[in-house]
């Protein structure tokens, strides 16, 4: 198993390296000269040249790439060409917002998705299953930013239950923090919940038809125990994998959700950087996204081995 994990780790590193080249080249393909943008319209050519040299824009691409890689590895992501703020500072202030939002959304999606999936299996062929299926299909078809707009209209403006926009630090006021994040997390989590529900239901149907569940039933175990201990536990493997695969989508979704609810997160940083051609920030943002995605997939694979006793070496028989 250790060898398996090491090989997997190696693959992740290769993926990251290739991605870093793609990012580096991609950012260089962007039109517009950041030195010109920084110097302003009335700058002398000498001033622009000085800034170019300062930013290292005159070196060869290979030198620039190696320089970039070295800096990234030492934790230096450069400074925003627009504001001069270190990129790490920008990430430090925006990432927590997005991470909390995503985590909240994942928790919502997993709880709702698995619960509905189990219910759908438990009541197969009856109205709860039909309802759960309909809900899942609908939420897969609804744009989450539209859902966010409707939620703001109805719950924030209409009923005044939640604040419509903005963010409060967790340390400042935990209650306000939760209130500000609840609606965005619900909106962001719906699509993921639908995918998890459908997957849970499908895996549960398969698991409940298997021999070990029949045996468990035959031993006279209570229904609920069979359902959760035997059916659900064995379905979780696939559910975890699928949830992991959805993370790329969740990141994209977070950008839009932050835009709708005016959360000062990673998504806003991304959009601002693109619209102002802030090379170092764009680079860092894409790099962090890629790193996050690769790490999550690695974690999913590790989890997979932990959750699935058939892969785990020397595991207890379940």
């Amino acid at each position, binding site marked *: 198993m250790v060898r398996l994990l090491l090989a997997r780790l190696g*693959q992740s590193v*290769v*993926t*990251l390296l*290739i*991605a870093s080249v*793609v990012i580096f080249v*991609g950012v260089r*393909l*962007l*039109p517009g000269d950041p030195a010109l943008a920084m110097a302003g319209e009335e700058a002398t050519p000498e001033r622009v040249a000085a800034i170019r040299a300062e930013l290292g824009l005159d070196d060869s691409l290979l030198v620039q790439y190696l320089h970039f890689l070295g800096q990234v590895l030492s934790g230096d992501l450069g400074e925003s060409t627009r504001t001069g703020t270190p990129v790490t500072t920008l990430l430090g202030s925006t990432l927590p917002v997005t991470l909390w939002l995503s985590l909240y959304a994942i928790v919502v999606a997993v709880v709702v998705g698995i619960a509905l999936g189990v219910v759908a299996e438990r009541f197969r062929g009856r109205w709860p299953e039909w309802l759960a299926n309909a809900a899942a*299909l*609908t939420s*897969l*078809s*609804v*744009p989450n*930013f*539209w859902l966010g*707009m*409707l939620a*703001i*209209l109805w719950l924030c*403006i209409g009923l005044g239950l939640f604040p419509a926009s903005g963010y409060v630090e967790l340390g400042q006021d935990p209650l306000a923090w939760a209130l500000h994040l609840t609606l965005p997390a619900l909106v962001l989590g719906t*699509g*993921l919940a*639908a*995918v998890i529900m*459908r*997957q849970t*239901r*499908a*895996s549960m*149907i*398969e698991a409940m038809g298997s021999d070990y569940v029949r045996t468990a039933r035959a031993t006279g175990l209570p229904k609920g125990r069979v359902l959760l201990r035997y059916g659900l536990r064995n379905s979780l493997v*696939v559910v975890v994998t*699928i949830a992991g*695969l*959805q993370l*790329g*989508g*969740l*990141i*994209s*979704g977070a*950008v*839009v959700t932050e*835009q*709708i609810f005016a959360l000062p997160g990673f998504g806003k940083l*991304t*959009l601002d950087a*693109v*619209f102002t*051609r802030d090379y170092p920030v*764009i680079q860092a943002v*894409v790099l962090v*996204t*890629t790193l996050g*995605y*690769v790490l999550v997939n690695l974690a999913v694979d590790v989890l997979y081995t932990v959750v699935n006793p058939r892969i785990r070496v020397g595991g207890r028989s379940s």
Partner: protein
Amino acid sequence: MTQVVTTTATTAPGGAAGAPGDGPQVAAVPRLRVLTHLLRTPLALTGLVMLAVVVLAGVLAPWIAPYAPEQVHFDAPFQLPGTVGFALGTDDLGRDILSRMLWGVRASLTVGLLAVVLAVVVGTPLGLAAGYWRWLDAPISRLTDVTLAFPFLVLAVGLAAISGPSLTNAAIALGVAQVPTMIRVVRGETLRVREHEFVQAAVAMDASGPRILAQHVLPNCLSAVIVQATVIMPVAVLGEAVLSFLGLGIQPPTPSLGIMLADAQQYLSRTPWPALFPGLAIVVVCLGFNLVGDALRDALDPSTSDRK
């Protein structure tokens, strides 16, 4: 927008179109039976009707839209739905929402179709190659890993930044983001099909790799490709809406459902109507594809899911 990698192992209702247990499974299901299955399943029928309405609306938009989508009526902003002359009301500039919506659906379908074509054209050959030639498997898998590591929004952001936001760039970003899943699906199918006797027979008869792939493997992967295409379509339509909403997709004054929603958001507290109908249109388009896609999957492949 959550990307959909749905895997369902639903059994076909009533087992109406069950595939034979052995042999080239999916291809053995007669087309007519698939069609009858779709027409007999109430949900699938609903989906087909939705799609028919939506496709007709999109195709016929230039002829059935009451006004040109960009035409402003400064004397009639924020008309309520049901106003004479404006069935679904007007927006802040007095533009007819119905007309803009019809054109928006047309744009959504165009982007969706382009994305699907791109994913199929690029993904299918790569998937076939990765599944058939072992030495190509690892490099192609790395390629899909790297592509998957860039969420579609990041791809779209990059493309929009490099060559300006446009309908084409939105379609390219959405299509490229879907290539990895298409590769995985086709690769899985190829791995399954290549074990069959008819492929081994072709190998024994010294048929060339490309010939085997084209004549024997590809036809047996087609239904999986079609099902995957119905999964990609709604994802791409949602993606287009997101990109246009953020200003990274279709550019005004060209009407797009996403742009309509972005405009509507600015005066949401004043009047919700302009935000309601474009959103509903997106839901109908996506729901139609999702319903038909689910039913197709059940009909073509009731026993297996695309899970590895």
